[in-house]
């Protein structure tokens, strides 16, 4: 055994939450939440392959308040995970590591995901002529 105690990092709750750390954990949370969406997508495809009744039931579940809320949250999680994923790919390529760039891209990802989510839903409602 080591004769000296190995150095330990302070626990997470010691640190002040910052944009960088919040966005980092949000990427994981969005990813986990989107993974649950796979279950809904497969259910929807199976319903479409099964029968008109099964598909109608899937569509009315999606149109319910809970369904719409989940779909809206999945939309937000998707655009956030997509844009922040692009941010990660840029970092992997060695771009955007300066502190100012990290904060600028972080805010761009947040604002971009809100704008794209609202745009997707506006497009959806516009396509079927209103609420």
């Amino acid at each position: 055994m080591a004769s000296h105690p190995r150095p330990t990092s302070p626990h997470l709750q010691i640190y002040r939450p910052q944009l960088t750390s919040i966005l980092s954990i949000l990427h994981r949370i969005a990813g986990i939440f989107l993974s649950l969406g796979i279950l809904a997508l497969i259910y929807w495809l199976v319903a479409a392959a099964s029968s008109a009744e099964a598909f109608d039931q899937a569509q009315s579940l999606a149109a319910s308040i809970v369904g719409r809320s989940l779909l809206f949250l999945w939309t937000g999680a998707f655009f956030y995970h997509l844009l922040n994923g692009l941010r990660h790919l840029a970092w992997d390529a060695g771009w955007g590591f300066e502190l100012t760039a990290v904060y600028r891209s972080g805010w761009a990802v947040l604002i971009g995901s809100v704008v794209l989510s609202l745009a997707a839903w506006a497009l959806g409602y516009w396509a079927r002529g209103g609420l």
Partner: protein
Amino acid sequence: MASAKGSLRSELGRVRGLGSAKEGVHHWWAQRVSAIALIPLSLWFVACIVFLIDVDRATAVQWLGSPVTLGLMSLFLIALIYHAVLGLQVVVEDYIHGKAAKLILLLIIQFAGFGLAATGIIAMLLITLYGG
């Protein structure tokens, strides 16, 4: 301190012989390859699904049943589920510390991934071949 000077490896790690299994890069790379594949595929999926959110079955089947949709949806499902399995695996490895719980969760994620991908692609094939 018997460890070699400058080595960051713990005594326990040295005794157990647990070092790099040379698989970390593969996981890291696969996560990014699937991510890049998902950029166009997921945008295609969302762009289409926006118009299918409350259509009847005939309309949905008409779109789902085209060969182009079958191809793109199959690629999307494979890339999506592969990416999700890789991501969830890291989350479990990072936060679940019990050996049994970790193993069981990793198995569930792997099996669910294969099962869901197969189910989705079979559903797509049925729709394409028989019109649902």
